[in-house]
């Protein structure tokens, strides 16, 4: 998603960059010392012309060989000092700045792990990734160069100008001539560049998203032979980015042109005036050389202001983008307290009390996804949750481990409100197996044991694998030590699902939430898993999203979710008899006549026509 456009007017580059202070603070001494070192080095550069002047006007003019040696020695010493200080400055900041970048990245990562899941639904991971890489690098570069050198160059320019004024005030004034137009150019440039820089960075983020999607959705693209149209769309985006980058180049070209021409003109003028003065005998040749040498030494500090400002601007944009993410509220820890109704309800099980839910970013008048959920799953009971596709079953399960927050009402575990306990505590009690089984880059064993509290050993692992019928793990090249996930062996959907199930049961959780846990299994394996799972469910309070009778039969009772409410609760057979919707969902017996192509299908003939 392309994020908010730059907040045009009241954004101040300085104010934005000041937000980096907490990260810079720990290394401030180093940075300061480095800046001082850089100023010193830079001033040495300015002293060298003075030595030259002394050399030309004194020993050279006076034909004094010893003086010449002395002058050269001074030059050498100053040169050595300058080189040493240059190296020292870089050495001083190298590790600390790499550290700042790393710390900011770690913070971003940590923060992103703690913002609500809804945040991740909104933000493409490409946008997040480009913040964690490119943007952070830009910020480090800012700290390494513009931050120091805007100061150093400022000081150098001031010192240089003073030296020039002291040598010859008139020539000094001539040199100062372009200062005002240069400053105006810089200000105008900075404004315009900021906008374009921001646009470019956002477009890079969007591009990253497209790349990522095309990698992740490669089977669909290949399956439909769409790589050409995808490539075309990609090309379009790349072209747009190119346009923005060229706009940036135009702005840069302008400022460079101004920054090259104006000072050069001033030096030319100074040369003409100086020559006249030398001819009149008002000025020594050595002074003119020194003066021009100083002026030339200031060229780089002045010239570089353009790109230093550009870097600063990009860093400000990067900072802004970084803090856009960092400013997202993390999941608040323990919102309410004291609502733990009755401590005596130790074996109360899982209860939904008048729970309503609507996505936090939905419109005020949008209908509730879950309108009024009252449901009690007794201690040790397993409850199947059945509902039509899109009825909100998965959403309901996400409320229990607080991946989403209820909009109204409450959920209690053994009588204790889930908002009254810490998330860690809650999630330790509730184990979840998601519909989409995600494995992480780790060994099979580690992936499964993630579900336990660290004290689980090989015995627990074996038990969990056995329950999930995931014995195949032992036959992998390195057994349960085999690496899977992004960087390891890729497993089939059914294998991943069984490992995810093993992960959910390994910690013998008090509460178990399973979202259609057997969907990818073949009938044979499913039957075996069911048998094993029944034993686990006997001692657990469980909520199981189910699509099939076979899964429903794992549970003691069934709840039917319909229209955002629990429409019926009972055993499978009861509901089959008494509830038409349930019977429809479970048997597919079409309420309007089974094999009849319905009204919807009547029009498909037209579509076939269209194809010919």
């Amino acid at each position, binding site marked *: 998603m392309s994020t908010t456009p730059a907040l045009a007017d009241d954004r101040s580059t300085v104010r934005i960059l000041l937000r980096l202070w907490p990260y810079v603070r720990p290394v401030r001494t180093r940075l300061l010392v480095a800046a001082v070192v850089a100023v010193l080095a830079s001033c040495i550069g300015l002293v060298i012309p003075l030595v030259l002047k002394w050399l030309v006007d004194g020993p050279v003019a006076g034909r004094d060989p010893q003086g010449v040696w002395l002058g050269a020695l001074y030059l050498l010493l100053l040169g050595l000092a300058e*080189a040493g200080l240059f190296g020292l400055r*870089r050495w001083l900041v190298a590790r600390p700045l790499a550290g700042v970048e790393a710390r900011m990245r770690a913070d971003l990562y940590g923060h992103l792990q703690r913002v609500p899941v809804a945040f991740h639904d909104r933000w493409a991971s490409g946008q997040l990734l480009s913040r964690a890489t490119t943007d952070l690098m830009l910020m480090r570069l800012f700290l390494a160069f513009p931050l120091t050198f805007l100061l150093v160059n400022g000081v150098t320019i001031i010192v240089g100008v003073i030296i020039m004024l002291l040598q010859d005030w008139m020539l000094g004034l001539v040199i100062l001539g372009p200062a005002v137009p240069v400053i105006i150019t810089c200000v105008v440039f900075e404004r315009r560049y900021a906008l374009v820089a921001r646009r470019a960075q956002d477009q890079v983020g969007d591009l990253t998203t497209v790349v990522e999607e095309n990698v992740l959705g490669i089977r669909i693209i290949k399956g439909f032979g769409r790589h050409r149209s995808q490539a075309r769309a990609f090309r379009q985006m790349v072209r747009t980015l190119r346009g923005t980058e060229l706009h940036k180049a135009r702005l840069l070209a302008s400022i460079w042109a101004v920054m090259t021409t104006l000072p050069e003109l001033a030096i030319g003028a100074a040369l003409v005036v100086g020559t006249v003065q030398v001819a009149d005998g008002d000025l020594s040749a050595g002074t003119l050389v020194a003066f021009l040498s100083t002026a030339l030494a200031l060229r*780089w500090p002045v010239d570089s202001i353009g790109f230093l400002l550009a870097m600063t601007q990009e860093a400000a944009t990067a900072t802004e983008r970084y803090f856009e993410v960092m400013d997202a509220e993390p999941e608040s820890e323990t919102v309410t307290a004291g609502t733990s109704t009755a401590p005596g309800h130790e074996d109360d099980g899982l209860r939904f009390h008048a729970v309503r839910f609507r996505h936090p970013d939905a419109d005020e008048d949008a209908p509730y996804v879950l309108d009024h959920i009252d449901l009690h799953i007794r201690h040790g009971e397993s409850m199947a949750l059945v509902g039509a596709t899109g009825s909100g079953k998965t959403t309901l399960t996400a409320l229990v481990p607080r991946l989403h927050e209820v909009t109204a009402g409450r959920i209690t575990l053994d009588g204790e409100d889930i908002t009254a306990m810490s998330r860690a505590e809650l999630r330790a009690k509730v184990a979840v197996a998601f519909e989409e089984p995600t494995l992480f880059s780790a060994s099979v064993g580690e992936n499964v044991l993630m579900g336990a509290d660290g004290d689980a050993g090989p015995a627990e692992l074996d038990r969990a694998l056995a329950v999930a019928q995931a014995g195949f793990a032992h036959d992998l090249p390195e057994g349960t030590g085999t690496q899977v996930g992004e960087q390891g062996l890729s497993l089939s959907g059914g294998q991943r699902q069984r490992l995810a199930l093993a992960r959910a049961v390994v910690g013998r959780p008090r509460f178990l939430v399973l979202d259609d846990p057997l969907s990818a299994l073949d009938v044979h394996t499913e039957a075996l898993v069911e048998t094993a799972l029944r034993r686990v469910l006997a001692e657990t309070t469980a909520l199981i999203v189910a699509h099939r009778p076979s899964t429903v039969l794992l549970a003691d009772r069934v709840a039917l979710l319909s229209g955002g409410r629990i429409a019926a609760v009972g055993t499978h057979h009861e509901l089959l008899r008494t509830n038409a919707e349930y019977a429809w969902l479970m048997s597919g017996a079409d309420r309007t006549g089974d094999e009849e192509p319905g009204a919807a299908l009547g029009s498909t003939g037209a579509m076939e026509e269209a194809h010919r």
Partner: protein
Amino acid sequence: MTTPTTPAPAPAPAATGQDAPDVTPAAHGTGDHFDQDVLPTPPGATAALLRSLLVPMKARVALTTTLLLFQQAAVQAGPLLVAYAIDSAVPALRRDDLGPLALVAAGYLLCALASGALQYLFIRVAGRVSQDVLLDLRGRIFRHAQALSVDFHERYTSGRLISRSTTDVESLRELLDEGLQELVTVVLSFVYITAMLLWLDLGLGAAALASLVPLSLLVRLYQRRAVKVYRLRSTAVAAVIVKFVETMNGIRPVRAFRREAANEAEFGTLNHRHERRNGDAILEMARYVAGSRLVANTAVAAIVLWGAYRVADGGLALGVLAAAVLYLRRLYDPIDRLAMFLNSYQSAAASLEKIAGLLAQTPSVPEPEAPRSLPAPRSGQPGREVVFDGVRFAYRTGGEVLPRFDLTLPAGQTVAVVGSTGAGKSTLAKLLARFYDPTEGRVLLDGVDLRDLATPELRRGVVMVTQESFLFSGTVAENIAIGRPDATREEIEEASKAIGAHEFISALPDGYDTDVRKRGGRISAGQRQLVAFARALLADPAVLILDEATSSLDIPGERAVQRAMLTVLKGRTAVVIAHRLSTVETADRVLVMEHGRVVEDGSPADLVAGTAGTGRYADLHRAWRDSLA
């Protein structure tokens, strides 16, 4: 565009007694390059890639060089004018001759204006060159990644592919935007200044040239050391990216299993390694900068000493010495910038090597050189006949999945494939969809080898719907239209209605125009599968493969799919891999697979009854019946 051809990189590591069922060929054990970040790159591929990127820009590269040539000439004329002013204009003025001074003034004015204008032009042209190269490179990576077969994608992780097309391209951008300009400027100013010095005074010029020897040694030394440092750094950053992406994409299980702390520790380790590498790279640079400054400043002192001596002797004009000194300061000024160039060159070279490695991968499922087209449907039916002709399939790393077999699926037949996980069902489907090519034998569609079909023709012929229903960002309608991009809104809606998806799509906030946001966060797995079906329906292929494509659907959804197959897709050849026997029952024919072989083949009724109910299918059927009880 030249794609360097290389033999498929498969020095198959001895099958490590593995052969776990249904394990896709992935990196494991030693000897597989996919463990590493850099794929084997044929020698010279990196340079060839760079060349192929720059060759089309030849004219403009020449233009930028010319612009810089003049720009530097204008910039470097300054001290010469100073020398002229001191040695000629001053005496002339004393004779009341304003001519030389006017010349100096005019010369300086001209130089100032020229250098500004040329600078402007240069940046614009160079920006265009750099952007066009990046455009080209981004496109190549993207297209190539898409051309590579599914089995490549299963091995090369998405995180790596993403960092190839983001950070690695970015480092090339830095080289092009800043680095190359630096290099040309540095070289040109070196050439100009040395030429000027030689012209001003042969001796001083020769001395300046001599100082280049230690400097170039220093550069070489730095370069050699930096290559290593930068390679380590970019490997370290790739690891950080992989971890980052994995966490963000799996945020739900991360939360639910309280992985935050463990993740932070792991990320911390990777991040810290990157920090060290990053610091190493910066320090290497610091050493170089200090060293080169040292050499430069020593050279300045020595040359000034000698020059001053000669002026004192009367062997050199004062103005010449002044100009020489000004030039000398400038001669060594761009040394830092040379380091910046080397800096961006190193990281770009490391990145380019990885990109070249990626681009050097040959698609294991290549496009045909001389594509054939499918014959007109024979039977007047939309379906086509599928023949597996002596097909055998084994992974490149060894491990036979499908032993040699022959199989014919007549046009219009609906064939269900059942069997336990790892029996080879998906591999069969992937061969038919040409996600893989068979190791031996041919897969024929109405008599035409799939390898001879160009992609558009192939996809009109065969479409596969899998159980993973990824949604692209964009609207629901756009996601369905992937099936047929030129479809009208009516056709999209028809397809959705036929599959029973219309109802939920209409109920979304903006209906068909609802943005699915990030990978369909708000659309349930079942709904996503319906969207995937609508897409396939819209594509209207001759052969439809459903690979466990109904796993997340509820029973009414599954029925809708079956109905659609009986109506909209009637007459198409269909291969249905399903765990649910409810789907299988409506098939014309059932294949039961085990260990890569078809062990039973017949109509559902025959298989249940025929072998007196002792076959595997009969077992499965009984188990399923029981589950419905």
